[in-house]
């Protein structure tokens, strides 16, 4: 299995999402509060995973613009949940950097008043296992 493929599989596995279930309705993008900040829109995330282009996702701005508000997860009618895919792509980046864990000690200096509280909570949920 190629690295590319491997990454796709990883995203699918981490997120538990089957991107083939997507019916391309766009409700995720319609729900997304960060839509305008994103270069790859939430609904496109799904097709990027379908097309196995994780590299582009990993290098996208969107990855870090997602607030993890989970509006898309909540509203997706097909159980595809782009928010989870984004989260999974982040996880891949973190893993590539060899940092599977985020330590609470690192938080204060990373803290930026612009960062929404929810992102922190979400990041913690993900990386503090």
């Amino acid at each position: 299995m190629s690295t590319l493929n491997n990454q796709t599989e990883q995203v699918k596995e981490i997120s538990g999402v089957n991107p083939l279930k997507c019916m391309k309705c766009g409700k995720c993008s319609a729900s997304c509060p960060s839509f305008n900040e994103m270069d790859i829109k939430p609904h496109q995330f799904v097709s990027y995973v379908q097309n196995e282009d994780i590299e582009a996702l990993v290098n996208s701005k969107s990855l870090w613009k997602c607030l993890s508000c989970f509006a898309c997860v909540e509203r997706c009618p097909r159980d595809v949940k782009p928010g989870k895919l984004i989260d999974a792509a982040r996880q891949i980046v973190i893993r590539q950097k060899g940092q599977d864990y985020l330590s609470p000690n690192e938080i204060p200096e990373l803290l930026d008043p612009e960062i929404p509280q929810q992102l922190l909570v979400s990041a913690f949920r993900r990386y503090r296992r």
Partner: protein
Amino acid sequence: MQRIGVFVCHCGTNIAATVDVAKVAEMALNEQGVVHAEDYQYMCSEAGQAKIQAAIKEKNLTGIVVCSCSPRMHETTFREAAERAGLNPYMVEIANIREHCSWIHKDVEEATKKAVILMRAAVAKVNLNAPLKPGESRVTKRALVIGGGIAGIQTALDIADAGYKVDIVEKTPSIGGRMSQLDKTFPTLDCSACILTPKMVEVNKHENVTIYTYSEVEKVSGFVGDFTVDIRKKARSVDMDKCTGCGVCQEKCPSKKTLSEFNRGLNTRSAIYTPFAQAIPNVPVIDRDSCMKFQTGKCGVCSKVCQAGAIDYEQQDEIITEKYGAIVVATGFDMIKLDNYDEYAYSQSPDVITSLELERVMNAAGPTKGHLERLSDGKAPKEMVFIQCVGSRCSDDRGKSYCSKICCMYTAKHAMLIRDKYPDVNVTVFYIDVRTPGKNFDEFYRRAVEDYGVNYIKGQVGKVIPQPDGKLLVRGVDLIDNKQILKEADMVVLAAAIEPNPDVRKIATMLTASIDTNNFLTEAHAKLRPVESPTAGIFLSGVCQGPKDIPETVSQAGAAAVKAIGLLAKDKLMTNPCTAHSDELMCNGCSQCANVCPYGAISYEVKEINDHGVRETRRVAVVNNALCQGCGACTVTCPSGAMDLQGFSNRQILAEVDAICR
């Protein structure tokens, strides 16, 4: 000792490509009782059947095994062929070596081995088969239609026109159903009432049709050709014979605060009411839950004003018991509840409405007398947004997994009608796909876009946010432009998914008709028997079987009627001879079998039994072969093994088990 013939079908290459058919035939000759075996290209063909018949005659066969496709496909074919050659049709067994073997296995050796085992099991069974003779049962020449919407009306009319009696049972006070709530119909835009009302009148007048409105089916027993149904005619509190339908009672009724079901709760009605002006019968009912007379004992205005003296507060529910030969289910649909869709603000703003509510708003007899206006402040809207697929095509538990089928077309209709009547209103439709298969359907949709300037946006709405100024902020996405859209709308219309009438599960259980996970009734065959339930004598008409529009409903209603007529036209029916049979020498009379019989087919008789010369009077089970459908529940419950199922006897099944495990 049986003389068995085994016939192995190639089914072209369907079987022969994976199973060594000649080998199967050759191996068959080693089996007990087998005196003839051959293979042929198409056993079900004329020539194939002729081979079977020739062998039966020449070799004096007493039983045959056909190794072919599923018995669900050709069991009847081969049984009939055997019967024409003078062999009892129940001496035929099928070994399914296509669906259960050649089609799912690739390895020829493995598939052949399995086919041989399946053949052996069938031979083992047929060795124990006994000729069975179907019984006869009579057919009651009367049909019951459950549901008085367009589907039920059409079915009833068609059956009645063919000369058979039909009863319609309708739960609400009037027939007419959903169609009576619609304003205009696609793709011709003719008014719904204009085409429906004449049919309602026709069915009401028809000498062969009896209509029970405000009534429900309470109990069903019996079987195809001979159902017995209890119908509960709920107390109307109005004497149907005396009432002239003048309407004064409704006018004078002081209790006018109940939400109108017909207008989808958008306005109110009196406690004594007919759902709508063209109701049939044009006789009101008293809704006892909201009537002051019934709730407090004080009032009685309707009785005072009724010139005809038709008001009867003492009226009781009435149970009508009637026999029917066929039952057609036409229970229709409702919109799903939108409680789980907070993001569309349906419960927060009166200006977010469903499409069916919009039908009432647009209808001249509706709550706004047909004026398009916001229900919150009565103002004329300038911006309207339609959201498609609300609750349809959902794989989560908030909505329905299926496409509701009618929404694309009615939304195009709504959009077109609004743009036509109010050209200054902007109409935007958020859609996922626009699905318009149907005669003149896509043309209709294109007209909405091209001639009427309806703005179709490929994308969904994520949230509708009611603003302090009463506007609705719609946040959607345009997937083509890849832009998020923020739009202020005055009204939002939701194309909510449709679902089968919630009562249908109860009805299906009474009818022992199968139902799928979405509560749609299951058809006997998805393609070839789409209007019949797998339960004999039960037919399906309209949306109870699956989402469909009016033309489709009407054609299915006609088809269901034809099937029912075909049944009613018969004087006698052959009954399934594979029924349970109790050996009275062994029966304990313990009643366990009757406890599990779903058809009440088992009764007990106290009779004299001669057990090899010993006479004894005792209680034994007796199976009514006309009622027994052959499920076999009793056979397993019976502790002594006195109860056995013909065609699927204990010994036959054990022989199959032994043959497979050999």
